[in-house]
């Protein structure tokens, strides 16, 4: 048995154990509620508080986490009764999804609720309940087979083996289709078998992703290319983490040369405050390689002025402890000094392939020293 196969088996075993723990977690919560009702008591449970005051930055974990304060949710409180029921239904629904290995999306959850006479005023209310379930179980919604609507994509020499029902054991090489493969539940849960790539390049925009495929960046730089489609969805971050952790691939990130781009990179690296209740979504070793504010000057990129909200965002991020040192701090300061920003497409000024021919090699080289 090859080493990689052995490893894959282990991973598979791990994945099954993970599913088991998730189901057990849901069951234990359900049992607790059941017991309360059986005893003639109003069911209740505690949930980590997600209020701003309870979100703290953990330097050791290098991400935001929730503090110790919890909130009690009780069915006795008539104001909470509705959301209590909604959460119970969601747990029940997630339990079915997980058990039957079926996938759903945020929107699908919202519409499915109607079949059970569960009322959500709108999708944002049901999205919020999904976050509640994440907080109670400390599991990302993807573990319950609930995915966001938007899909990012992946391209490169990576062999995978599906684990979803009906495709078990089926293999796929992710460089067979030039448009790339969308990162959905089947891909996120697939076993990563092997790869010839030596690096993962996460890129913010679909346009550049297509250019990179056309320019065969995967072959030229032995890389797996991932389009994050703006802020990387959870599933994409999960996949990035797995590529890093399981395949031992370094991850670099290319974004637009603005404050939002910088933060997209930061979220991949160390998560977001919104997901402070979740761990294992971060790739702490991921490296942001551009476009930096300093690159704007260095490469004399065409720029547009920053908007008021861009500038406000800069000041906001300066208060974030993760922006207190290194390039994060430095680039933020330069953005504030320039008050201008540049898109990845700005390199087109020097020719359509300039970014892959000139800029990317330089940055890849630089990444080794970061």
């Amino acid at each position: 048995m090859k080493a990689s196969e052995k490893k894959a088996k282990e991973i598979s075993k791990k994945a099954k154990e993970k599913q088991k723990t998730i189901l057990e977690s849901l069951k234990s919560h359900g049992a607790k509620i059941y017991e309360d009702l059986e005893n003639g008591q109003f069911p209740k449970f505690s949930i980590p508080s997600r209020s701003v005051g309870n979100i703290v930055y953990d330097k050791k974990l290098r991400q935001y986490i929730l503090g110790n304060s919890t909130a009690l949710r009780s069915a006795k409180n008539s104001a909470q009764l509705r959301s209590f029921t909604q959460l119970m239904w969601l747990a029940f629904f997630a339990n079915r999804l997980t058990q039957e290995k079926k996938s759903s999306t945020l929107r699908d959850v919202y519409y499915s609720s109607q079949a059970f006479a569960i009322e959500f005023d709108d999708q944002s209310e049901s999205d919020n309940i999904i976050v509640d379930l994440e907080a109670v179980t400390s599991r990302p919604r993807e573990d319950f087979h609930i995915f966001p609507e938007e899909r990012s994509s992946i391209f490169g020499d990576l062999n995978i083996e599906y684990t979803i029902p009906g495709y078990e054991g089926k293999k796929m090489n992710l460089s067979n289709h030039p448009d790339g493969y969308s990162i959905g539940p089947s891909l996120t849960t697939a076993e990563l078998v092997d790869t010839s790539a030596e690096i993962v390049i996460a890129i913010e925009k679909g346009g550049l992703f297509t250019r990179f495929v056309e320019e065969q960046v995967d072959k030229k730089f032995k890389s797996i290319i991932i389009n994050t489609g703006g802020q990387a969805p959870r599933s994409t971050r999960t996949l990035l983490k797995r590529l890093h952790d399981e395949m031992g691939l370094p991850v670099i990130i290319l974004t637009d040369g603005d404050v939002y781009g910088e933060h997209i990179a930061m979220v991949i690296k160390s998560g977001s405050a919104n997901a402070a209740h979740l761990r294992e979504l971060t790739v702490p070793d991921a490296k942001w390689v551009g476009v930096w504010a300093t690159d704007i000057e260095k490469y004399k990129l065409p720029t547009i002025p920053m908007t008021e909200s861009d500038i406000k965002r800069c000041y906001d991020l300066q208060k974030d402890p993760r922006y207190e040192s290194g390039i994060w701090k430095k680039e933020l300061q330069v953005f504030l000094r320039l008050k201008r920003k540049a898109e990845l497409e700005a390199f087109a000024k020097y020719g359509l392939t300039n970014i892959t021919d000139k800029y990317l090699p330089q940055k890849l080289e630089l990444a080794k020293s970061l």
Partner: protein
Amino acid sequence: MSSIKEKFNQISPSEFFYSNRDLAGFSNPTRSLYTAVREFVENALDACDQKGILPDVHLTIKAVDPDKPDPKPYILTVKDNGPGVDAKHIPLAFGTVLYGSKFGLKQARGMFGLGATMAILYGQITTNKPVIVKSSTDAKIQNQFEILLDIQKNKPVIQKHTTKEISKKGLSVSICLEGDYSKAGNKIRDYVYETSLITPYATITFDDPKGQKFHHPRFVKEIPPPPTIIRPHPHGIDVERIRRMIVESQFEIPTIDDLMIEKVRKDLGLSKQNLSFTAIMTKAKKKWKNLSRQVRVVIALLSFLKMDFEKLSKIRIEDLDVPNKKLHYWDFGDSQSKTVDMDPESQYYKQLTNTVQGEPLTTFLTKRFQRVGPTTAVKFAEFAKFKPEKRMGTLTNQELVNLSDSLQKFDDFMAPDSSCLAPLGEEPLEKGIKKFFNPDFTAVVQRPASAYSGFPFIVEMGIAYGGDIKSGGPHVYRYANRIPLLYDEGSDVVLKVVNDTDWGRYKVKGDPPFIIVSHICSTRIPYKTAGKENVADRQEIERELRLALQFLSRKLAAFMSKKGQAEMAKKRANLYAKYIPMIAEFCTELAGKKKEPNYKKILEGLEPVEVKTEKTVKEEKPIESK
């Protein structure tokens, strides 16, 4: 009464009212029909009230020619089971203006019976038909009159007078008048309806021209205590009234004729004995306490004349000169005028001065006015700068004016006596409201008596919420002296007080189903107009109305918040009943169980709390008088 008449002697009162009939509410066929109904119904109710009879009032309006378009002649008949009117009074009572029995100072729906004669007058003017009056005072004989009014002479013209045997007491008045029922119908029906609310002890039946019958049986069998006629309060008086009171308090020196002598002898028990002067005086002294004023005056005169009855019959008193203490008389026997001196120290002298000069001020005040005691009277005399013993008969015109002014200004008189008022009472009012509106909440209050300008008044008020009451409230039912007020609502003091209330503060929101019943009782309601439809905003009355409404509103607020809490609890219970089973369903599958947990225990602990309504009034069977 005679002095009131004198004021209009230049033209006849009938003529006066004929040319000013708008004042009394007879301005057009619509309003006139309504006013006529009111006047007759109120007269009927007043007559029954005064004799403590449970009223049965039957109102009928019939078109003379139903096919004619309005306005057209109608026959209006109001029949009651009251005491009836003596046959000898009927022509004057129904055939002259300003004749009536309601002259005392007490609460009554109408004054002087003026309105009824106005209606008769209006009927005659518009249709030239006589009023038909049927009356029985003894439940044996009924007198039936057909009377026309001679407007210029203010005299009745009897066209027909018949009698017949009958078994019931009561009065029936029927007139023919020009009216517009299609327009006045709503108001008349409202009037009958609202009257039966404030007169719960009366049975009122209305047969309308369209053949509809409105029957409002009594639901209270106790008639409220009738008001008593009382003396006036010093604050509610004027110079003219004082002058008349003084006249009433003075006595003429009685004519000493054979008849009078006979009376004195009889009262002294000396009809058959001829005693000497001294013996007469001794006898009189013994019997003094039981003697009438007239007899006392004769005895007093006798004491100075020093005569026996024989001699007394032969003289005539010419003059009683009190200041000079002389008594002049004509002696028929000697055919000459004679004079005797009067001893001012004699008790008989005092008796005579009282008679001639009237009572001392303090006596006048304590005897002729309500709520004035000897101490207050002396204090007042000092305040008004009069000697307490000042004789009322000796007051000059200027002194009379000063006295009248001072009576108004003196603040130490007690509040007016309210025994002349006849409020309905909290219990009958509440019963009426509950019967009429079947509400979820009722509260009533009767304020203590208060007074404005010397006229006592009492405010009664009721408030009700929910039940059969239609939304869009507050609906205000205004009453004054048990009369519903239907017109000119906008300018009424009650409406003003209601509109000034911030109902949100009392937890009454939106389009609330609630009513307010307001009843003002007074010896004189300060109406803004002669039509008696809206009460003027006298400060004292407004204050009482406000206090009554505040009291009731607070009770309503307590009910509303209780209601709100109960509704909330019910809502909450409904929420539990909806969601708990769902939670149970989901957690059963989640926990991997087959059977749902027994969550009923929780729901049972949460039985929804019903809103406590106050529908406790038992439906009472209508009580018919026998």
